[in-house]
């Protein structure tokens, strides 16, 4: 666990988590999953519910109270409604927590802009909003990746692929499929067959940066963490139109900050400018946010861009010489 991705992302070697909104239905379900996956959850908090116990963990009224009673807490995962995310996240940052996962969908764009600035001032990092979270195969999970512990344990196995995704479903898919023995996929000769044998590549960690326009952890933040992560040999990402994240990734490769091979499944070839998308962050606002522009700048610096998800796994196999 000490060598998990959070060490490189935020300098946390042993995550000790507070679950904000732990008394709610989703908070409880996810806390159970997180704990079964090895996450060290120390406490929960919900305003007005202090003094209760949930899943044998103490509940406090606020992050501040929780940290006062458990000074070793260093991160939080939040199951609070979108309208309450800004306040809850700022409170967690004020309490001294250095990392948070904001799962809620529908957070106001203004709130996201304010949070980015606040987090920077406080020296904090957060994943999301609108994320299914992150999973590290060294033994922790924040959020809902995998769904059930049985499924997550079966499908997310230690290995050398670092996964970054702007989509919840695709983050789970890109992670799980790298852990399947004999995964069939497109071969270079046009046939469809096993890309690797019993020995699958596996994943170091899966980071879902979320579908919103101003994510806390961006694709480049995640990629820089994987660059430092000794387990990770190849970075695999799902990118799409909207925001400059893929362009920033290309710039980091060009400047030599990232040297590990990167494979990107880029969505949005047919997305029209100015049209709202299922992911709020995928809306194109200018030329630099289009599929064509992003593909061009990434390919120019040697990032492998593919148009279909199964081509990702074929490229991973190729990069790893499997």
């Amino acid at each position, binding site marked *: 666990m000490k060598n998990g991705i959070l060490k490189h992302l935020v300098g946390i070697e042993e995550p000790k988590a507070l679950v904000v909104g732990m008394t709610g239905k989703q908070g409880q379900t996810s806390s159970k999953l997180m704990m079964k996956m090895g996450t060290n959850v120390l406490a929960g908090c919900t305003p007005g519910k202090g003094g209760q116990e949930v899943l044998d963990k103490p509940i406090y009224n606020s992050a501040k109270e929780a940290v006062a009673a458990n000074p070793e807490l260093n991160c939080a995962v939040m199951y609070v409604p979108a309208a309450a995310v800004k306040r809850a996240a700022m409170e967690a940052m004020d309490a001294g927590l250095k990392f948070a996962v904001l799962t809620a969908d529908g957070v106001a764009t203004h709130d996201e802009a304010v949070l980015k600035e606040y987090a920077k001032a406080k020296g904090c990092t957060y994943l999301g909003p609108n994320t299914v979270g992150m999973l590290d195969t060294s033994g922790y999970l924040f959020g809902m990746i995998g*769904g059930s512990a049985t499924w997550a344990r079966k499908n997310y196995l230690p290995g050398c692929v670092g996964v970054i995704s702007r989509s919840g479903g695709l983050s789970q898919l890109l992670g799980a499929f790298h852990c399947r023995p004999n995964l069939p996929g497109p071969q270079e000769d046009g046939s469809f067959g096993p890309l690797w044998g019993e020995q699958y590549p596996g994943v170091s960690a899966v980071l879902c940066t979320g579908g919103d326009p101003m994510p806390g952890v961006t694709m480049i933040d995640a990629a820089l963490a994987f660059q430092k992560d000794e387990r990770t040999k190849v970075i695999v990402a799902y990118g799409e139109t909207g925001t400059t994240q893929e362009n920033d990734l290309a710039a980091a490769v060009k400047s030599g900050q990232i040297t590990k091979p990167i494979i990107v499944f880029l969505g949005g070839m047919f*997305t029209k400018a100015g049209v709202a998308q299922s992911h709020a962050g995928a809306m194109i606002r200018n030329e630099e946010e289009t599929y064509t522009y992003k593909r061009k700048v990434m390919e120019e610096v040697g990032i492998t861009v593919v148009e279909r998800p199964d081509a990702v796994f074929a490229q991973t196999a190729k990069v790893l010489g499997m």
Partner: protein
Amino acid sequence: MSALPEYKTRVLLDNEKVPLVEGVFVAAGAELPDPLPEPPVYLKAQIPGATSRAAQGLVRRCDSKEQLESGLKQLLAPGSWGQAEGVLVANSVNMKGEYYAACMLDFGNADELPHGVLLFSTEGGSGVEERAASLHKIPFSLLNLPSADDLIAKLGKVAGAQAIGKFLEGFIKTYARYKLIVLEANPIGVLEDGSLLVVDCRAEFEKQAVGKKDTELFAAAPVTKEDKTHLERLVDKVNEADPAGTGFIRENREPAPEGAWRVATNLCGGGGKMLWEMTTGARKDIYTMNESDTSGGLSAFKSYRVLRAILEMEDSQVLLLTGSGMGFQNQHYVAAAVWKAIRESPTPLPALLRFGGTDEDKGRELIEKVAPSLPVPVKTYMPHVFPNAMVDDVAAMATKQRIKVTPEPQPTGEPSFRVDVPPGDFFFFADKWDKDEAPPCVGACPNNFLFWNAEQRTVEPVEGARCIGCLMCEVVSLLEGNGELRIRLDLPEVD
């Protein structure tokens, strides 16, 4: 993104004490104010999102009472512009100059934090777009809003800087308070004494940013029946009764190209939609009947109802469904919804089904087991087969003629018990279970919601337990029992 008409934008500005030209709003269908404001006045039809209103005749100057009365009558009635929400009757003011101001968001990038941007020009009025060079572009923090003095310092040498700074401070406060995407005032009138007031304004906002207390103010114009199809309204009603998770469809308004295969889709999440778009975006031989998204932990009850709506789309030839990877969207439950929808729909479609995510193998096994009993062919795919490969089977699976069947009847009459959310009527048929032990549906519930009352020989809900609407009890009852437990999932009535 939604647009707020001028008269409502004025309320936002007024709440932050930004000075406005005096005016009265007359709502469509409401009594005219008595007395009417004294001319000269301007009549401004209030239509959310409307631009270039003057060119369309939606802004009129009235110099007499007669002009005012007839102008009001015309603008309050439906016209080529549709039906205005009402008319703003604004006083005419003598201006010695016109300024321009707007606030918007800069989403930032790897080197720059997101921030607000103030655009300001001392050359406002119509055609401001052509005078872009005159715009001051002032970035500002949304965390620590700039004061009037901050703004004055950033504006540099501008005549009347004190008045401008104070005005813009309130303008930015309004923008931040209501979390607007765009706030624009054009023109801002400069009066003889140098004071400023907003003559015209507009705003764009995010629905998700509207606070509870402001709901009425930001209420969008009522959606007319013509804006949504019958099936879209049906799904809206499904969501009202069962709000957890996303259930969304939007029918394609574009006509299908001749000869194209018409594919009804049930996709999951933004990623699922993207996979299908990447596959079919350039293909003229595939016509997507609808956008859809069933994700975010919706119940199988809701999946079933959305699917029933999708299966009802006229002219569809085949259904394509892809699951995602969300854990709480157990694919076994989704498969149960698919099975139920296909066997209970009067217009089932041949189906291409790819389950992906938790228990995808169980989902696939269920469909493969029941496939021979279905009225249409279904084909399942391994999770590593994506839409880019599934699409190759569309032509072979699509029906040439719409299939109409007499579906499996749903139970009628009073249910044994009812679940309110997610809504479903449970029927236990004691005559179909003559054993002493509990029927298999009881043990099938993952949430221990069902209890076997051996004395009464019936299945009952456990007090305090919750039904998650997964359909496992019915599935097991049909496959392993004797059909003793059935669930009726009514579709909502739509006007």
